[in-house]
């Protein structure tokens, strides 16, 4: 019987194209991935079946499991404008130019106004420590800080939209500012309700509650 001839050298497969493609994809994903800014708290949002995505232009209020309230509005220019409006409303808030610049670059912030200057002036480590012990932004109607943040943020957003050539009547649909509330699943409803009440005083009634997609059926 004729013997089957085995090739002497090990079979080699040219994997270069595959590796090229692999690296191309890695590069693509690295570049497109949006890294979340350093968040002072981790919030475990409740699951729901809704598949509605979080709108692009959104003012987000975060409530952690202890009921502390954080405020976030994206956009460097908008944040700068918002802060200057906030200073107008609260003349006791004294910030240096450097601190204001730092604020524009930060994300979520849960500092009461009287701690804000100290918070912005300190380095990352001290900031993390301050984050751990902050009482959150006051939501009560006496101090009204959250209400002022919302108002300032809204005004700054509208001013920014006008700067980009949008008429006030055109700012609707997905161009309009939406309001998201991201609360931890274990937060007491009372705390979330306080935030909603502040919004209601400002005649804002529609919210996007941040949830995670429920996996499978219950």
């Amino acid at each position, binding site marked *: 019987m004729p013997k089957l001839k085995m090739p002497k050298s090990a079979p*080699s*497969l040219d*994997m*270069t194209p595959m*590796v090229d493609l*692999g*690296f191309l*994809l*890695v590069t693509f*994903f*690295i570049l*497109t*991935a*949006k890294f*979340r800014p350093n968040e002072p708290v981790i919030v475990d*949002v*409740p*699951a*729901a*079946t*809704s*598949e*509605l*995505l*979080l*709108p692009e232009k959104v003012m987000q209020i975060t*409530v952690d499991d202890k009921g502390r309230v954080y405020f976030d509005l994206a956009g460097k220019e908008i944040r700068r404008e918002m802060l200057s409006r906030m200073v107008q409303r609260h003349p006791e808030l004294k910030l240096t130019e450097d601190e204001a610049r730092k604020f524009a670059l930060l994300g979520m912030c849960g500092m009461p106004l009287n701690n804000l200057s100290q918070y912005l002036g300190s380095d990352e480590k001290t900031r993390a420590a301050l984050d751990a012990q902050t009482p959150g932004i006051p939501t009560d109607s006496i101090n009204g800080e959250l209400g002022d943040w919302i108002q300032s943020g809204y005004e700054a957003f509208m001013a920014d939209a006008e700067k980009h050539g949008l008429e006030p009547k055109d700012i609707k649909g997905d161009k309009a500012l939406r309001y*998201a509330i*991201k*609360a*931890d*699943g*274990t*937060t*007491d*409803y*009372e705390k*979330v*309700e306080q935030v*909603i009440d502040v919004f*209601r005083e400002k005649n804002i*009634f*529609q*919210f*996007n*509650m*941040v*949830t*995670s*997609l429920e996996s499978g*059926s*219950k």
Partner: protein
Amino acid sequence: MAEIIEGGGGHEKGGKKRPKKSPVRMDMTPMVDLAFLLLTFFILATSLSKPKTLEIVYPKDVENPEDQTKLDDDLATTIIVGETDDQIFYYHGKFRKDTTKLEPSDFSKDGLRVMLLERNKRVVEQVNSLKDQQREELKKSNTREDDEKINLRFKELIADASNDSLAPFVIVKTMPTTKWKNVVNAIDELNITSVKKRAIMDMEAREALLFLSPEKVAELKLK
């Protein structure tokens, strides 16, 4: 496998004879492994980072909910969301002292959902048939513009169907210590069962007394 094979170096200057170098082989397998690991990580991480949201519209006037919703009491269903996961109840109609009984329920597939589907049967059937029609029409249409028109038209039709004057009205009642995830769960159930007429309100003390001790109710300062 993936490797770089380099020849002996090419030109040799000078007349000196050197022992022949073996080609340099570099094993690229670990690097490729790492690349694919990163690839997998980024693929998974990017798709997971998109947060989903649940849209909730709160009513404008909360001072006088009775004025705002002039509805038949028979159409009302109240869902009580207590402090813990096993304090989920419901009752139909108006609250009547002594006769109103709380039915225990939960957020599972056979809990509130079954009750709400049964209660909202007519609307659910209408909405489902509208959705089927919408799917049919979308299949027939060719342009994206047509698709958008169809979607918009059906969105209105579905909204009309769920705002039917005979559709049930659901009130979600919460306590200060109700956990947020249970409020979201309750609203999610309403969305699943196409209940559009809804409100979130504070629980009344007389309702809380049906499943909590008087001391606890006093502590919560319910009205």
